[in-house]
């Protein structure tokens, strides 16, 4: 999932013709003042921290300025912030517009309908989760004909737009649809979408690009999302890795089995802290890397729960034994292993030769690892 910062999202919007306020990015207070002085950004202006988390307004990450000096001061204040764990490095300065109304608009996927869905609400400017369902239009869009006239009219109706404002919406929705389809977006959201006179302007931009479509979008390759450093390393090695606050490390293969393992551990009072999903690899080297990564997360105990399919049991056993030799003594951890499925016998044999016993029962192995981690919480 590639979440674009507001200014990057707006660059994409601009390419497709979504109307935007005049604005520019600054990375220092001096740059902020200069943008205003040169008239690149008209006054009065708004100055926004370019962070991915929401709630910037309330959190002091959005300020206004009427003079170049105010812009400098606001930029200084915001660039000093650490907002919800993220240090502010970039600011977006934009003209402050006379807003008549704030609306909400987004395109995302409706999994049940297996269709893109257009959501529109007249109650913009607040988190859409807080808007009651009856105030949101949800219009599925079939990808074959694409966005149709009646669908756009339905959105105009709920947004209360008529005449030139409805025409502005019509064009904006065509642009937004193009962004969603051509950029392989998971989500494109404008909140708030401002009515300024009788035209619409996107005040914010939230664009999330689908990770799986990255082969079509090398342009997003260097943009990272909100992963921890270890998660980032995992991503580079194509290992699914999630860090939480617990002390048991879990290495499994497949999302369902990983979650089931977690369910069982919790049942016996265990506190899982790191999940590492090997997915469908069948490469011992990748298994070794996974174990080394796990060691860096410093779990109290590790539970290896593998059901061999594409990933074969002997592959995992080989990778594991290889890893164990390379983990520094200080980082070593007690290990409970359970390997079943394809090449189960070969795998168990390899583990046994290295002094590791595989427990066949999921229940018993889970209980064992909870004990190793210091007992139930």
């Amino acid at each position, binding site marked *: 999932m590639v979440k674009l910062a507001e200014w990057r999202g707006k660059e994409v919007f601009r390419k497709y013709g979504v109307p935007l306020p005049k604005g520019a990015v600054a990375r220092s207070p001096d740059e902020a003042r200069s943008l205003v002085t040169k008239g690149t950004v008209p006054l009065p202006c708004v100055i926004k921290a370019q962070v991915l988390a929401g709630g910037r307004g309330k959190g002091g990450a959005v300020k206004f300025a009427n003079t170049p000096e105010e812009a400098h001061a606001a930029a200084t204040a915001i660039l000093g912030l650490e907002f919800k764990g993220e240090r502010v490095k970039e600011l977006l300065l934009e003209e402050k517009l006379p807003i008549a109304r704030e609306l909400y608009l987004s395109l995302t996927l409706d999994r049940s309908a297996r269709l893109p869905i257009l959501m529109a609400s007249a109650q913009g400017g607040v988190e859409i989760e807080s808007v009651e369902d009856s105030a949101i239009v949800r219009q599925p869009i079939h990808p074959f004909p694409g966005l149709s006239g009646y669908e756009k009219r339905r959105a105009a109706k709920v947004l209360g737009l008529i005449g030139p404002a409805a025409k502005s919406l019509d064009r904006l929705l065509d642009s937004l649809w193009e962004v969603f389809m051509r950029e392989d977006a998971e989500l494109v959201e404008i909140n708030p979408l401002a009515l300024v006179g009788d035209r619409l302007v996107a005040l914010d931009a939230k664009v999330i690009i689908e990770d799986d479509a990255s082969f079509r979008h090398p342009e997003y390759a260097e943009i990272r999302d909100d992963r921890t450093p270890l998660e980032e390393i995992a991503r580079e090695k194509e290992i699914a890795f999630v860090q939480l606050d617990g002390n048991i490390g879990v290495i499994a*293969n497949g999302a369902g089995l990983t979650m089931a393992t977690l*369910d069982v551990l919790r049942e016996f009072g265990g506190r899982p802290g790191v999940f590492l999903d090997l997915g469908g690899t069948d490469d011992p080297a990748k298994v070794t890397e996974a174990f080394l990564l796990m060691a860096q997360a410093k779990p109290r105990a590790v539970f290896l729960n593998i059901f061999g399919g594409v990933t074969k049991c002997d592959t995992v056993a080989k990778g594991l034994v290889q890893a164990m030799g390379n983990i520094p003594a200080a980082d070593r951890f007690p290990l409970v292993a359970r390997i079943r499925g394809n090449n189960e016998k070969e795998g168990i044999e390899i583990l046994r030769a290295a002094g590791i016993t595989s427990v066949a029962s999921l229940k018993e192995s889970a209980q064992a690892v909870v004990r190793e981690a210091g007992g139930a919480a």
Partner: protein
Amino acid sequence: MSVLIDQDTRVVVQGITGHQGMTHSRLMRAFGAKVVAGVTPGKGGTEVDGVPVFDSVQEAVDRTQANASCIFVPAPGARDALIESVDAGIRLATVVTEHIPFHDMLIMYHYASAKGARIIGPNCPGIAAPGKSKVGIIPNVVFRPGRVGVISRSGTLTYEIVNGITEHGLGQSTCIGLGGDPVVGTTFVDALPLFEADPDTDLLVLVGEIGGTAEEDAAEYIRHKFSKPVIAYIAGRAAPPGKRMGHAGAIITRGKGTADSKVAALEAAGARVARFPYEVPDLVAETLKTRGRR
């Protein structure tokens, strides 16, 4: 009878000359499947373990009367591979490939639907009908012919549960791994009528996971239209909200799709819901006993 595939299913493997395609073609044949052809553009005229390879699916169909395809083509080419198989008249395509963009899958699904073709997957283990045929990658060893149907959104968890059923001395009629991607060709609701109509299935095991509303939709269907007993398991009760557990199907959004909501919906529909994978075989056996069937 079985569901979707049987001993007459003639499989063409798209991407047969790759490592995965080759390995699993062998395993499918070892399970009893009729793998009649492979397709890899540019490798037409060669063979893989005696299976003829063609440049196009159309040629494979014309020459070998293949009627089901199994797609191992890497994600960037998967959409084209599926369109090709649909255009060649294939009406059942199992897409094993993972990491297909959902935008591609939207087009694949709606195009296949318009042409009357069914997709299983993507990113799925496929279908196995023990004693008859297999299309996909589920390990052969976990199965035993029997009368329990299995549908699942998970991969390895399916193997775990099927294996449990087999170790308990029971067997499966057909097992379908639907895949857990955001857009799948066949959902629980799409698959349920097939098992309802299958005279060889006495009971259905449904393996779900958090995220989306596929299990809630299934519960609704089960309540009104499914007459056989259902044993369910939902993975992810202890998963943290909003975190990915390996694939996009497991994001919890806006309070919907939680394990609680799924369990409640299924229980309200009359299903018995296991709390852990290892409870499933016991519940299956118990239910079949009560019903006096096996």
